């Protein structure tokens, strides 16, 4: 199991994920630095991510959208703060329109990715922080509306299958 620990901090609205992978530092860095690789894991299979802009340099933008099973697009925008290949990446992640413009007044998460050699493999530590509990609540509520709607549809399908 690659996830070593997950710490959620209620006080500063952050989540720290530590995972160990049996792969080189360069290989793990590629997951972040190659847009086609990033698309394969950033969004869940039901909401696949498509990267539209990819400027992994300080001050650069990474734009993406995730597509719902119904074909609805949810945009996101990273603003890159620092890049220290292949060890460290910091960026902010915001909600965006489908055309890649950051949405006004929506919560912005700050994400720090740190890669280090560990036991012959690579340890990845990601720390995501939101400014306030309200921001965190909004982020999850937006994702959750979709998740819950999906879950309700699954109940529908299940009951329909049982009735048949």
């Amino acid at each position, binding site marked *: 199991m690659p996830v070593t620990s*997950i710490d959620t*901090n*209620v006080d500063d609205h952050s989540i720290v*994920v530590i995972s160990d*992978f049996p792969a080189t530092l360069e290989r793990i860095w590629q997951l972040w630095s190659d847009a086609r690789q990033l698309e394969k*894991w950033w969004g869940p299979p039901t909401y696949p991510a498509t990267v539209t802009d990819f400027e992994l340099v300080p001050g650069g933008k990474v734009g993406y959208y995730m597509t719902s099973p119904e074909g609805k697009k949810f945009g996101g925008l990273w603003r890159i703060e620092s890049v220290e290949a292949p060890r460290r990446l910091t960026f902010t992640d915001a909600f965006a329109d489908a055309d890649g413009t950051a949405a006004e007044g929506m919560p912005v998460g700050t994400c720090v990715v740190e890669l280090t050699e560990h036991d012959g493999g690579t340890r990845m530590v990601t720390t*995501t922080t939101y400014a306030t509990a309200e921001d965190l609540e909004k982020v999850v509520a937006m994702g959750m509306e979709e998740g819950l709607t999906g879950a309700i549809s699954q109940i*529908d399908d299940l009951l329909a299958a049982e009735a048949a």
Partner: protein
Amino acid sequence: MTDAEEKRADALFHALADRTRRDILRRVLAGEHSVSALARSYDMSFAAVQKHVAVLERAGLVSKRRSGREALASGEVEAIRSVASLLDELEAVWRGRISRIDDLLADRP
């Protein structure tokens, strides 16, 4: 689970066990609806739809407010979650990501 939590879970599952109520919840999660507008969407009486909304309200899934003569219903999902459980949701997002990375590495180390 405490007795209160059990009761809450009962109310939640009871509320979600009906197709019309799931449909109402889906609509009000997307945005506020008046009960009369909801009632027009179903082949049943206003009173019957009102009853469904009341069941959802008792389960804490829907909140209602009055605006003039209208009763407006909206989804109340955020209210029933604490910050701690919000973080659990984010944790699930990251677990998903890490497990997809793991699969990716297995395909092409």
